[in-house]
C-alpha cells in the first residue's frame, strides 16, 4: 500500500477531475434533460419528434463512441474541443437522454387538476411549470434521477479514453508504471464506491425531505 501513499496526491487530483466531470455533466444534463422532456410532451409535432429521435439515438448507442466521436470526430468538421470539455459534452448529451425520460415520467405523474388549478388562475405556462409542476414532478422523478447520477459518476471513467486524467486513467497510469494494477484499480474502485454510496445516502435524505409535505 506504500504505492498508494506515494501516489495519493495524484489520485486525489484525479478524483477531483472525476467529481468535476460527474457534477458538471449532471447539472447540465438535468437542464438539457428537462428541456428535452418538455419537448417530448409538447403539442408541437416537430419538437416532439426531435425529442424522441434524440432520446433513441443517444440511449441506443454506447457512451464510449459518443465521447470519441466528440473528441476525434468533430475536428473533421472544424470543431475542436479540449479533452475535459469533450467528455463533459458527451456525458451531458448522454445523461440528458436518460434524464429526459425521468423528467417526462415525473411531469406526467402530476395530476391534471394541478395544471387546471394553475391555468384557472391565469398563471403563465413557464411560471406554472416552475412553481407548480416542477416541485411535484421532481419528487416522483428523484429516485431514477438519483440512480442516473450514480451511473453518470461511473460513466465518467470513459473520459479516460480521450486522455482525461480522471480516476480510472490515473489508476491505469500508476498500474502500468508500477506493475501493480490490482492495487491501483482497487483503490480507484473504492473511491468510486465511496462517492456513490455517499450519493445514495444523500438521495435518501433528499427523498425524505421532499416527501415531508405528503406525510
Amino acid at each position, binding site marked *: 500500500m506504500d504505492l498508494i501513499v506515494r501516489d495519493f496526491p495524484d489520485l486525489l487530483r484525479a478524483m477531483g477531475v472525476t467529481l468535476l466531470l460527474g457534477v458538471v455533466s449532471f447539472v447540465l444534463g438535468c437542464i438539457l434533460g428537462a428541456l428535452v422532456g418538455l419537448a417530448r410532451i409538447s403539442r408541437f409535432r416537430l419538437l416532439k419528434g426531435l425529442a424522441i429521435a434524440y432520446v433513441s439515438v443517444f440511449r441506443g448507442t454506447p457512451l464510449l463512441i459518443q465521447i470519441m466521436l466528440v473528441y476525434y470526430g468533430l475536428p473533421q468538421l472544424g470543431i475542436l474541443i479540449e479533452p475535459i470539455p469533450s467528455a463533459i459534452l458527451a456525458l451531458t448529451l448522454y445523461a440528458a437522454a436518460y434524464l429526459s425520460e425521468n423528467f417526462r415520467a415525473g411531469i406526467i405523474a402530476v395530476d391534471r387538476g394541478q395544471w387546471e388549478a394553475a391555468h384557472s388562475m*391565469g398563471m403563465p405556462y413557464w411560471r406554472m411549470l416552475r412553481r407548480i409542476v416542477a416541485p411535484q414532478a421532481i419528487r416522483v422523478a428523484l429516485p431514477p434521477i438519483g440512480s442516473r447520477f450514480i451511473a453518470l459518476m461511473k460513466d465518467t471513467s470513459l473520459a479516460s479514453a480521450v486522455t482525461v486524467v480522471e480516476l480510472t486513467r490515473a489508476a491505469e497510469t500508476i498500474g502500468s508504471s508500477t506493475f501493480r494494477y490490482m492495487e491501483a484499480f482497487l483503490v480507484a474502485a473504492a473511491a468510486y464506491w465511496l462517492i456513490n454510496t455517499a450519493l445514495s445516502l444523500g438521495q435518501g435524505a433528499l427523498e425524505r425531505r421532499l416527501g*415531508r*409535505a405528503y406525510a
Partner: protein
Amino acid sequence: MNTTDQPGTPGRTDSPIHIRGLQKRFGALEVLKGVDLTVARGEVVVVMGPSGSGKTTLIRCMNLLEEPDAGTVAVCGCSVECGDRARRRERARQVREIRHRTAMVFQQFNLFPHLTALGNVAEGPLSVRRMPRADAEALARRLLDRVGLADKAAEYPARLSGGQKQRVAIARALAMEPEVVLFDEPTSALDPELHAEVLQVMRELARDGMTMVVVTHEVEFAREVSDRVVFMDGGVVLEEGPPREFLSRPAHPRAQAFLRLVAHDLPEEGADDEGPDKPTRWERAS
C-alpha cells in the same frame, strides 16, 4: 378590478357573464348544443342537471379551460368569439384576462400539495398578480381567517380534512380578487358531515355580494342562497327560474324527475346521493 370599460358587445350591459349560442363537442359527442346564459353582477346562479348533461363543461367554458367550438363567451368585459382560430396572440391575451378576473373552485380541490395552506392561498397573488411576498402572505392570512382556518396556515394539504381543503381552495380563489367565482360541485367529494362548513363559507360569500356560478345538487343551498336555478339536460338549458319556484314546481317533466331523486333523498341520507353513484341512479330513473 371593475374596469369593464372595454367596448362592450351590443346588448351586454354590465353582466359579468354573457354567453350566447355556446357549442362544444368532444369527438363525436355533442356536449353543449347552444347554451345562452347571462349572469348579473352579484347574482348567485345554481346549475343543476343529471350527470353528463354538460354542467362541468359549461362552467369550464366560462374561463376557457375548455375551448368552445362555437358561440360567444363574454366574461368580465372580455369577449371571445369561439371557433375562430385566427389572431392567436389576441386570443391568448383575452383568455389570460378572463382567468385573472374569474376564479374556480374544483370538486377535487386541486390544492397544491407541495405548498402549505398559506402558500396555496398566496400563490396566485405572488406569481400571477406579482405582489410582494409580505403583502401576499398578509392577504392569504386574512382570507384563511375568513374561511375559519387561521390556525391551519402552516399545514400541508395532506394533513387537512376534505372540508378544510375545500375552504382553503375557496380562500385561494378569493386571493385572486375575482369578479366571479365558479364552483364545480364543491361539496360532492366530501363526506356528508363536512358539507355544512363549506356551504357556510359559500353562503357568506354570496351575502358579501360575490357573483357566483355554482354547479351543485345541494337543494337547500340553492333554495336559500341562490337567485336563480338553471336546469341543464342533454347539453341545453331546459328550464330556469327563481329557486323557490323551480324547486317546488319545475315545469319540465325531466326536471321533475330529477328533483324527485335529488330532493327526496335529502332529508335522510341525501349526502350519500351526492356520491359518484348518483348519476347512475338518475340514468336508471330516466
